[in-house]
Structures are given as structure tokens and as C-alpha cells.
């Protein structure tokens, strides 16, 4: 079986390979540059701590995405707990580099958290629905359902 074990890439190579993708996903989930950086840094620390060996690059990519999404969900939950006790604003505004990016984040902000990861991985990162389901630990029909709900919500918002 061909695997990546024979030549373990160093952290710089791994960073170059995945950092942009993971940061995009984390920024879309968290809508905060600092939180997204923290999430991605945590993911790389986890990678360095566990030093996992993968069968191939697809499994490696899926692992990085899964751990990033889970870390973002954890951070969103603790953000909710913080908000219960403090009256701070939910997100620090992301400095939009362009009008299109600002619009993109507005669309993402209107999608409920439960469906957002499916939209990010499938519609923005280009993963297949099966890959998205695998990363999120849900069934294929669950992923389809979440995507449909997100689309319905956006359609409703447009019509209002």
C-alpha cells in the first residue's frame, strides 16, 4: 500500500500545503481574524503533538479539515458561553479586502451554524458531498439535507 509514512513532510511543508485552506475555513466559520488564527494554530499544534501518519494525501487533508472544523465549533460554543455573561459583540468585524469578500461574509453570517460547515466545505472548498459528510462525521443524506436547508434559508432571506 502506498502511503505517506515513507517520507514524512516537515511542519513548514505541511503549513504551506494546508494553512491557506484551513485559515479560509476557520475565518468563514468564526468571522474573526484573531480567532481564525488561534484555531489554525491549535490545529497545527495538535498535528505536531500527535504526529499522525496518513495513508495518502486525501486522508491527511480530511484530517486537517475535520480537526479545524471541530476546533471552530468548540470556539463558537465557548463564545456563546462568554456572551451569556458579558455583553461583548459576537464577532470582531473582518476587515474585508473587497466588496465581494464583504458580501461573502454577509451571506455566511446569515447561515445558521449547524449548516454553515457543510456550505463552506462543499460550496466554497469544493469538496464532494460524500467528502463533506466524512469530514463532518455525518451521513451523506445529512449533508444533503443541511445544504438544502441552507439554500432554503438564503432563498427566504432574498425574498423578504
Amino acid at each position, binding site marked *: *500500500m502506498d*502511503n505517506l*509514512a515513507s517520507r514524512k513532510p516537515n*511542519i*513548514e511543508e505541511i*503549513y504551506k500545503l494546508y*494553512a*491557506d485552506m*484551513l*485559515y*479560509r475555513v476557520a*475565518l*468563514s466559520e468564526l468571522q474573526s*481574524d484573531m480567532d481564525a*488564527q488561534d484555531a*489554525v*494554530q491549535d490545529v*497545527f*499544534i*495538535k498535528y*505536531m*503533538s*500527535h*504526529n*499522525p*501518519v*496518513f*495513508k*495518502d494525501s*486525501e*486522508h*491527511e487533508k*480530511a*484530517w486537517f479539515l*475535520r*480537526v479545524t*472544523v*471541530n476546533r471552530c*465549533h*468548540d470556539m463558537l*460554543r465557548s463564545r456563546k458561553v462568554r456572551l451569556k455573561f458579558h455583553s461583548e459583540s459576537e464577532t470582531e468585524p473582518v476587515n474585508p*479586502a*473587497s466588496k*465581494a*469578500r464583504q*458580501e*461573502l461574509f454577509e*451571506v455566511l453570517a446569515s447561515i445558521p451554524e*449547524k449548516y454553515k460547515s457543510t*456550505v463552506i466545505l462543499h*460550496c*466554497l472548498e469544493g469538496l464532494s458531498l460524500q467528502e463533506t459528510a466524512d469530514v*463532518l*462525521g*455525518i451521513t451523506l443524506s445529512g449533508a444533503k439535507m443541511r445544504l438544502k436547508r*441552507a*439554500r432554503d434559508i*438564503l432563498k427566504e432571506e432574498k425574498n423578504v
Partner: protein
Amino acid sequence: MFNKSQLEAYSNIEAPQELYEKVLSSKPKKSKIYLLPLAASLAACLILIFGIGFRSNFDSEIFLNGQLVNTDTVLIGELAPESKADMRALPTLKILVEITLTEKTKVTVSSGVLILENGERVNSVTFKDDVSFFWEVESKAELTESTMTLNSFSGKQEIILTQYDDGSYTAEIN
């Protein structure tokens, strides 16, 4: 859902330079040490003492969810937070097992079932060649160990799957 310019704006997002510096200056965390109950530790010692005689140059590679399992603990995955909160949402872990084999080998699991390519669900099965199947075990957000044993003419190998209370699960060759 998104127009062309929004998709383009998304793909143009790059990780900031300061993140690169933060990551490269980060130190790996030491893994948590869980204190097993005395009886379990004693049992592990006995397995080690008696098992060592049966160990051999087991010339096979075992992948769980695409990750090579070896004598170091490897993180196989984590339950999604919603699954941690509601175990009914994901009552089982379904782990893809891929094994390269050079001889007839019997695979047995201490808990859960093996789901073969034809859909058959068994606790024990013998293979002659490279094989892939699913190992389905009850999902528990608490410290739980399950074992998969590979028995062949040249020896025996045990893979310990450990589930932790934070929803993560690891594997290692005993």
C-alpha cells in the same frame, strides 16, 4: 448560492504571515496521561509479559481511517461537537480498517462488529490477502478501550482503540 466574484474573493483569502510565525514557534503539547485503574494496568502488564513471546515480525500494515497505526499513539479522529452533546446522533464509530497481509490471518475484535464488503457483520473473520472493512464500535465519550487482534502463523498483533472523554479516539499497536 455564491456568485463568481464571491467565490473568487474566498479563494483569494490567504493565511497571514504572523500565523506562519506563530505556528513555527509553537511547541507540540505533551499527551495527557490517563491513570488506568490498577486492575487494568496489571492486566496490561500480564499481556505484555505473556504476549511478548508470541510477538514476531508481523509483516503487515494496518490503517485506521487512512492512518498508519504503529506502536506510538495516533489520533484517529474526534466526534463532532454535536455528536458529543447528543450521543444518539452518532451511536457508533465506524472506522475504516485497511490491512496489508502476507499470510492467512484471523481478525477478532473485543467489542463492536466487523462489517465486511458484502455487508456481513461478524466478530471474527479470516483473511488471506489485503483487505478493507469497517469496524463499528459503540461511541462513548468516556475512557474506553477496544481491541482488535490479528492472529497468523507468524504471530499475533493487537491494536488498542481508546476513546476519551473529550470525544477523541486514538489507536496504537500493543
